[in-house]
């Protein structure tokens, strides 16, 4: 994939020492393993089987350095975001405005798409329509082939990930070079991005050093960030400068001007768009906004929500081909029109891919983005992945406590946690939850709707019966105690206490001095 010469010594143990010699003689405790902690990988995807998110999450949590770093990095972003929010008095109005603009656009999408196409054509841009990933991929590769272009440099785009574009292109002899640093790291490691804004956030510097050593021939023991960035730059620059075509994604497409706007911090969208005479833009049809003036609302929200910075370093507007060059825009549906028709879930199309919901999500921070086994991870992923493949992603809406923090940070006010609950219902109704779960819920429903059965299911004040009642534990395999202690079983239930103290009709002892029973002193 990469033209760099792989020359790093592969698989050499850091000290070159056999395992047993790494312990100090006579030490009574096992020493932690020497060398950097290995990076946990995403789930193994089995054809026809739902993604095992929780299994992959457990592996991630079993790597303490990765877990701590990942949680802290993303939590820092969340805190920076909060600070930015406090700096803007009209923050909540901005969010409402952004949501309103998106709702309006999505409900008039046909109109704005036509307006956008008209204006883009007038600007000298070639416009292509792709109904799915396959069409998108073949359109782009055809454009390249017909112009004899072999090497494509591109800035980060989740849509091309969604389309599996890189693989498709590689199979057809088109070499793709990612120009975003994080995305380039992921490309070199042959691993999907784990986060929509910070694609390699799950990697320690030592992981990056290992990837670069393997693929770029850098010093495997040097994990200095500057060194690594510089090495990447040195090895990738020549490839960029000799590229034949450039591709960018699109953050916003303005209908009234026919222009596309890309926000980056590395300036690599400009690099990708302007280095060659051929610029191809991949954009989802939901990226539209009606007017240029609407852009201000989103620009104010995007980077503040994403990274807690007031604005991205670059906000690049591309309106037409440069002199003597070509500019193409590929408008991709790939399931978006279907999603637009889903009554409960269509507002997920408002998403501007800021990643704030991931940064705040306590499950995401502890499981890593790769664990979701999908292009879109974290809260937004839970509600859009099942639209691509309901069975494969049927486990994802359960990877949430539905705590609602995602909804609160979302700059376009998507009711993410409510949609997660909505998906659980859809999945349950369509037999996409495991039969054992469904059966437990049937049993729980039967027990909890019957006072008699419910009473019978409770643990007795018998210390031998120290297990949670069936309606809480749902199965005999008690998973509760793997990471926690059981609650103490009280001598009697509230119900029994009430019956004893107050009698069944509640008359006995009512109104007596309560302090006598609780030890409080009523004064």
């Amino acid at each position, binding site marked *: 994939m990469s033209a760099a010469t792989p020359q790093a010594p592969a698989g050499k143990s850091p000290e070159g020492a056999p395992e047993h010699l790494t312990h100090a003689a006579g030490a009574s405790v096992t020493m932690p393993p020497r060398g950097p902690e290995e990076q946990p990988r995403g789930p193994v995807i089995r054809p026809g089987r739902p993604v095992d998110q929780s299994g992959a999450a457990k592996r991630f949590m079993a790597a303490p350095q990765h877990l701590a770093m990942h949680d802290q990095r993303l939590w820092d972003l969340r805190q920076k975001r909060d600070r930015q929010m406090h700096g803007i008095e009209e923050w909540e109005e901005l969010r409402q405005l952004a949501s309103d603009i998106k709702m309006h656009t999505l409900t008039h999408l046909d109109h704005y798409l036509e307006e956008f196409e008209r204006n883009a054509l007038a600007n000298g841009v070639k416009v292509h329509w792709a109904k799915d990933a396959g069409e998108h991929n073949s359109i782009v590769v055809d454009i390249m082939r017909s112009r004899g272009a072999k090497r494509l440099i591109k800035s980060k785009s989740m849509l091309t990930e969604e389309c599996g574009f890189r693989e498709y292109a590689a199979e057809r002899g088109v070499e793709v070079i990612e120009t975003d640093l994080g995305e380039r790291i992921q490309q070199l490691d042959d691993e999907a991005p784990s986060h929509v804004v910070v694609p390699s956030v799950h990697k320690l510097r030592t992981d990056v050093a290992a990837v670069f050593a393997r693929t770029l021939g850098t010093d495997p023991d040097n994990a200095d960030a500057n060194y690594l960035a510089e090495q990447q730059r040195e090895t990738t620059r020549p490839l960029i400068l000799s590229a034949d075509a450039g591709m960018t994604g699109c953050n916003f497409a303005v209908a009234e001007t026919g222009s596309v706007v890309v926000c980056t911090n590395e300036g690599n969208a400009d690099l990708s768009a302007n280095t060659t005479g051929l610029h191809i833009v991949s954009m989802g049809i939901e990226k539209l906004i009606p007017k240029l003036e609407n852009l201000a609302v989103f620009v104010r929200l995007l980077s503040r929500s994403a990274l807690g910075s007031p604005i991205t370093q670059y906000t690049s507007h591309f309106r037409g081909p440069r002199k003597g060059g070509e500019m193409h825009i590929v408008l991709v549906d790939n399931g978006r029109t279907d999603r637009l028709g889903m009554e409960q879930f269509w507002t997920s199309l408002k998403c501007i891919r800021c990643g704030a919901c991931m940064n705040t999500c306590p499950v995401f921070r502890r499981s890593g983005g790769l664990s979701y086994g999908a292009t879109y991870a974290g809260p937004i992923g839970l509600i859009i992945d099942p639209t691509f493949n309901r069975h494969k992603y049927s486990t994802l809406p359960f990877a949430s406590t539905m705590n609602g923090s995602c909804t609160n940070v979302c700059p376009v006010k998507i009711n993410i946690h409510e949609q997660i609950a909505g998906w659980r219902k859809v999945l349950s109704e369509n037999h996409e939850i495991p039969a054992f779960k469904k059966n437990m819920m049937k049993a729980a429903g039967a027990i909890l709707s019957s006072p008699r059965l419910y009473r019978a299911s409770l643990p007795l004040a018998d210390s031998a019966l120290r297990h949670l009642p069936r309606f809480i534990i749902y199965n005999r395999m008690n998973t509760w105690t793997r990471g926690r202690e059981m609650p103490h079983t009280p001598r009697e239930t509230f119900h029994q206490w009430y019956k004893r103290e107050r009698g069944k009709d509640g008359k006995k002892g009512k109104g007596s001095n309560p302090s006598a029973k609780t030890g*409080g002193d009523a004064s």
Partner: protein
Amino acid sequence: MRVGLFVPCYVDAFHPEVGQATLELLERFGLDVDYPFDQTCCGQPMTNTGCHEESRATEELFVKNFSEYDYIVAPSGSCVNQVRRNFTALEQTEEVTAVRAKTFELVEFLHDILKVDAFPWAEFPHKVALHNNCNALRGLSIASMSELRNERFSKPKDLLGKVRGLEFVDIARPDECCGFGGTFSVFEEGISSRMGQDKARDQARSGADYVTSSDSSCLMHQEGCARRLQLGQKYIHISQILNGSRA
């Protein structure tokens, strides 16, 4: 004013003292409090798992048990949130919508309906960290949320602030979910426990002697995590503090 007391299933089974404290506390204000005998649960375990149909009969039973009261009060934000916002498996008759609208979480009820301004019997000379259940916080808005740029307020803090000797301590991530999440705590036990352990460590670092919350489910989970980690803080439901428990 006739009040129906709802004692959620896990409170009934594991924390009867929370039901007792709630009952007695309400009675201190001269309310006529009933405990309908045939009550069970709010249906949350099923709804939470997406099984709304399986929850319907339980929801019906709830409505039947409580429709005659002026108010229904429960010492649990997540159960009240279920009744108020997620009781949708039922046909929305007048009776159902009325029950949903008059079901209150204890803190809300004391703060907004009774507008209690003093708990003269209450004294709690300890360092206390407050935990807001996510449903109580983001569903019922019992306090302002760190993600939103709104005016700061906290109903539980208002109430606890009236307790003699009580000293608040702050934890580093006050609004972070503790990972209980209903059936999540069982089906996704790995992440759930980890989140609970992180929460318990945060509480321990804050120097809290006690952690309190208006939700027993979170407390039960957090306490289990803290005990596993052998951390020293204790857990107590807000109703117990407000009712005059000293420890």
